[in-house]
């Protein structure tokens, strides 16, 4: 079974600073996808970034980038130049191959401090 672990229930960062959110996962699959979703107070799930396991290059999306370490089964999210609007719950998710079902971690609540 796939498990996704986010070991930081809460984090805070000063506005304009950089923060890294951790995620590890467990799977026996070789090909899969990893995602970070953001959930603001409105509770909508917003896709932040995705990574294909077969790509060695780390994905980037503007201020968001990942550090994907396949051997270590680690998938951390780095947010640069943090903004107040980044305050949200952040969920790491693993996509099961073939059926494409998402398995989520328990989330990290990020607060950006002005």
């Amino acid at each position: 079974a796939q498990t996704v672990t986010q070991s930081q229930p809460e984090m805070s960062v000063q506005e304009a600073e950089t923060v890294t959110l951790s995620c590890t996962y467990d799977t026996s699959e070789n090909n899969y996808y990893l995602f970070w979703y953001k959930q603001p107070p409105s509770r909508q799930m917003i896709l932040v970034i995705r990574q294909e396991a077969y790509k060695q290059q780390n994905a980037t999306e503007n201020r968001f980038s990942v550090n994907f370490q396949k051997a270590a089964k680690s998938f951390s999210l780095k947010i640069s130049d943090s903004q107040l609007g980044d305050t949200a719950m952040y969920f790491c998710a693993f996509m099961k191959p073939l059926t494409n079902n998402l398995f989520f971690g328990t989330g990290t609540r990020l607060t950006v401090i002005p």
Partner: protein
Amino acid sequence: EPEVTQTPSHQVTQMGQEVILRCVPISNHLYFYWYRQILGQKVEFLVSFYNNEISEKSEIFDDQFSVERPDGSNFTLKIRSTKLEDSAMYFCASDPGTGEETQYFGPGTRLLVL
């Protein structure tokens, strides 16, 4: 930009009543999903749907639950006899099925069972 929509945004019901949660996936998407998130907990997979049939379902998705795509546009989740523990946020998601392997989530329906 196309979005997944869900109605209603909030629903309150009495225990034992039937509820139908509605979703309109992004047009031309082929894969559809329901997830739920009990308050304060992680998002959990319920069911996936493709080609007018269930692809996979979780242990949560018991006989009280059913899904349907009645008209090629809507995608519904029915709970036949609601229980208190069904209170949660229910998210619909869709995937284009073009190899993008990305699920786009709707804003969710907050269900409260009294």
